[in-house]
């Protein structure tokens, strides 16, 4: 059950996130009309609403935007700690509100996708899950239902993951964050160098093979169901749930460490 304060904070995050999302969407719509207009020599007739609508799949876009918003929790934390709210409530409200927004976003995305006059109103075209796993079960209804579950589950995992990453960064001061970014960048460069050097010997090839079979395992590919569309979705579900649980737990543990920084 939720206390009155938990409800208030969750509501606040929910509304605030919707507001930010709306603001970003307006800008996206504006720029997706503005730039084609400019580059077509200020000619309105050349903008094809049809191509814009067919090219855009709302669900993934919303998922990315919401995750982006979830990356920056510190300002909200400042306001809440000033307002006598505990970190526990902060975490709970944040998880609940962002999950609600993302799930809502996906549902809207699906509805818009199905109503979109320029697509074929089919799950199979617009959902990666349906393309890969959509023929696993015998019944279409079951496949569609699992597809829906997977979309909602995966968007939740992505959001919770973003909340965790954001909370990690919020532990550091601005200066430390810059150093970490530089550090990660350097590590990436070194790693790529190492790979490209290592690929040339057998040892590395071995690792890649193992990685390959590991990936197959994760995505549910077993050779026997090699036909794309009928892969086994069990492993992806398990992986998503596990990742979600780890991120939930991780973000909670990290937010417990939140404090007002001296900067």
């Amino acid at each position: 059950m939720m206390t009155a304060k938990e409800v208030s904070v969750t509501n606040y995050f929910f509304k605030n996130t919707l507001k930010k999302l709306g603001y970003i969407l307006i800008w996206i719509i504006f720029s997706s009309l503005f730039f084609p207009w400019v580059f077509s020599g200020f000619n309105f007739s050349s903008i094809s609403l049809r191509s814009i609508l067919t090219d855009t799949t709302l669900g993934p876009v919303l998922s990315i935007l919401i995750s982006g918003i979830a990356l920056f929790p510190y300002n909200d934390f400042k306001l809440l700690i000033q307002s006598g709210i505990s970190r526990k409530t902060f975490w709970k409200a944040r998880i609940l509100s962002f999950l609600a927004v993302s799930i809502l976003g996906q549902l809207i995305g699906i509805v818009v996708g199905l109503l979109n006059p320029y697509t074929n109103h089919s799950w199979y075209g617009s959902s990666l899950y349906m393309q890969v796993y959509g023929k696993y079960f015998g019944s279409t209804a079951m496949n569609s239902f699992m597809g829906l579950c997977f979309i909602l589950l995966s968007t939740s995992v992505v959001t919770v993951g973003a909340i965790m990453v954001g909370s990690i960064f919020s532990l550091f001061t601005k200066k430390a964050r810059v150093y970490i970014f530089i550090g990660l960048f350097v590590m990436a460069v070194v790693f790529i160098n190492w790979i490209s050097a290592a690929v040339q010997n057998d040892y590395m090839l071995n690792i890649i093979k193992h990685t390959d079979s590991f990936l197959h395992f994760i995505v549910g590919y077993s050779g026997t169901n090699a036909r794309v569309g009928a892969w086994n979705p069990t492993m992806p579900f398990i992986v998503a749930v596990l990742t979600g649980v780890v991120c939930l737990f991780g973000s909670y543990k990290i937010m417990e460490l939140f404090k007002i920084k001296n900067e």
Partner: protein
Amino acid sequence: MGIEVKNIQKKFNKKKILSDVSLELEPGKIYGLLGRNGAGKSTLLSIIANRIFSDSGDVVLDGESVFERDEALGQIYLMSERNLYPEGAKIEKIFKLTELFYGSFDYEYANELADKFGLDVKQKFGKLSTGYRSIFKLIIALTVPARYVFLDEPILGLDANHRELFYRELLDNYVKTQKTFVISTHLIEEITNILEHVFILCHGEVVIDGNVEDIMKKAYLIAGPQKDVADYCRGLNIIGKESLGSIHGNYIYGDLDDNRILPDTVSVERMDLQKLFVNLTNMEEAKK
């Protein structure tokens, strides 16, 4: 009942900021928390309000730890130099947020105070000057339904008129609500008479903890010719010395010896809280 601060310790980068601070706040009193810069006042207040963590010790409200408890934290408001409100939000919007998070908010009172101080509630928080940021935060502090209100440097940037008005409104509020206020400030003279109880913090330790009147009863200035003063003060707790020409003064904190005969040449006077503070903290400084 009240807030108990129990054995709080805090280090920053191996530097000791608070070493074993314990104190009690009873409901319905005005406390002063005094200390020089770097004495650890803000750190202590931040720990009480759960903004940062202590290394050890606990803060207890009505018998239960305040740590991570909404009900307890909702009874505490810390107004500090740090600005934790969103820069882009309008004042009236922050009033609303405060209501949302604290459960209630007296808009009428808040607007009345805003009027008196000349604060425009349509203004954005980020656009306010230092003085008006203080005023805005003071208004929230006086209006918020928390029973324990901590004011860290409340008059930062306020001009003399606004300070007068603030003391007035603070006392008015105190009489009406019987909340507990803890005021931390460098302008000791201005608040001496407002305080009922005072804590003096020095190098992360509480060196004075007591009723202001009782403390002032033990604070003396013994003045006269150097030799007579020295004789009279032998063995007493001398916390500072001062001399002007041949007149010598010893600041004493503690009881005088009633059995000693006061020479005609020596006078016993009182000192005020500010003098006591300056002498005590100087002495502690010299010990280091």
